[in-house]
């Protein structure tokens, strides 16, 4: 094996990303649920001027509901299929930062 192979394989063995990195689905789900609620509420209290501007579409309501649905989809996906954390590597047992 080449030196590069050895070096990168050794670093992969000590890598902490797989074990410690949080799940991005939580952030997407949380942010879009929050945005969805905010924009949907703006759509519920829509003004005539806003309706006129947006070609008589209650765009806040529709966009808000769609964002809410996307947010809940990600939260649900995370709940149903949680990430399997790989068994801790030898380096983890030895403590952080070598």
């Amino acid at each position: 094996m080449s030196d590069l192979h050895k070096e990168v394989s050794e670093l992969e063995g000590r890598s902490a990303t797989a074990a410690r990195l949080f799940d991005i689905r939580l952030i997407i789900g949380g942010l879009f649920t929050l945005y969805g609620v905010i924009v949907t509420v703006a759509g519920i209290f829509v003004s005539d001027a806003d309706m006129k501007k947006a070609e008589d579409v209650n765009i806040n309501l529709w966009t808000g509901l769609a964002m809410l649905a996307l947010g809940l989809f990600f939260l649900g996906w995370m709940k149903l299929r949680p990430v399997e954390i790989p068994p801790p590597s030898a380096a983890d047992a030895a403590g952080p930062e070598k």
Partner: protein
Amino acid sequence: MQSPTYYLAEGLRLPTNGLDYTILAIYFIVVLGIGFAARASVKTSLDFFLSGRSLPAWVTGLAFVAANLGATEILGMAATGAQYGVAVVHWYWIGAIPAMVFLGLVMMPFYYGSKVRSVPEFLLQRFDKSAHLLSSVLFAFAAILIAGVNLYALSIVVEALLGWPQWVSIVVAGFFVLAYITVGGLSSAIYNEVLQFFVILAALIPLTVLGLKRVGGWDGLSDSLTASKGENFLSAWGGTGIGDANPLGANWLTIILGLGFVLSFGYWTTNFAEVQRALSAKNLSAAKRTPLIAAFPKIFIVFLVMIPGLVAAVIVPKIGTAGSDLTYNDAIPLLMQELLPNGVLGIAVTGLMAAFMAGMAANVSSFNTVFTTDIWQKYVVKDREDVYYLRFGRLITAIGVLASIGTAFIAASFSNIMSYLQTLFSFFNVPMFVVFIIGMFWKRASMKSGAWGLVAGTTAAMVNYFWIYKQGVIDIPSDQGANFVSAIVGFVAGAVVMVAVTLFTAPKPEAELAGLVYGTTSPGMAEPPAEGDDAWYRKPALLGWGAIVIAAACYIPYSF
């Protein structure tokens, strides 16, 4: 693919209110939060630069498409739509999809399997130090330049839309990017790109829907544009016969060879800011699927930029001409101002800001990797412990961001020099692809041929563009068309020189080529597929060919 410099018209100030600013503020908090939450996962330099090669394919795939979906790309492609019409689809369906599929299906086994951490590192393994150093240094410069230009473009757009002084947005956006990448590394950059992908969709979809409604649907849109601009404006290939005149200034042959083959393959398969996303995937199957998963949204994103561009051309028929204050780049900001009420407007502003920051972050996070592993670790301070390179990576990230802030301020005073430099660097991408393709498929290609191919191809493309085209030796109708032709010239020159140099110099020893050249495999790459990777919808061949078929089918309604 290359971002022009932006001038937005005055009078585009958006009627933002507290609701919109709340939405924007929440986003900035989340961006920082991702950075600090990712910090715990950074233990080695590989975690910092490549997320420990452990991310799932859907994450790297969406980051792959988002890294390209910077705001300069979004505004620029909407501008292309407003200027040239439906022909903008070429940049997506022929100028991106085939190259992305090629990267996933053909090149990824060599890239990922060889365990290289960057695109220049592959050149070091396959060729020699001169090819490596040349491409590393040029990439590092170009990345900082593009990051700075992104930042400058952001400041112009934010000044026009929100009224912030330019220096405020340069410093604020630069600071946020610095914070989240220095702390969280590539994982933080990639996670923010995934988030940005969804926010930009949430911004562009309502804009497209309302824009279409405003002009009477697709039928109303095509009727008024046919009346004002002619049939060819709504056709992908109309007027592209060789010798015919069309606004793009290119014929079908230069579109297919120049844009579809050389430029697009050069960008998508050798630009490290893109390839890095695939190299951070958790296994070979996920790495192959990264550009393939990205290809599907890429096929359809064109509608979300083209339609606002076309709608703008209907609403303001004189857009981009001397008769109007508005330039083509104003298409999307114009529709935001005209159509979006507060709330969705906040989402759209957030989406644009996010896209600018992601475009900058993709360059910064690839710059720090190349500078640390390819330049510093190989030529300056060698053989130190890993913690040293991790610390150095964080330091150089901060320095890189400060340098791009400086570049943004220089761009603000000398924007002509900047666009000139960008054109210069764009010619370096062209021979990269020829060097890769010959290096990967021709075992005999010698160690020295790599560097010579790079130099010859770059020089030929530049000579063609700056001398033969700019001095009028040959008549090419537009900059765009000349760009395509220069790419083809650079490719051919690079290939010829590589073959010639190979004939007179020594090949790389066979043993060192394992896993780098077609027909060889890396030692230890026969790892068993991860559980679930054999599902039919995860088969790379199906995903790749599926994307090609869909992209080809998309052409049908715009071709006859």
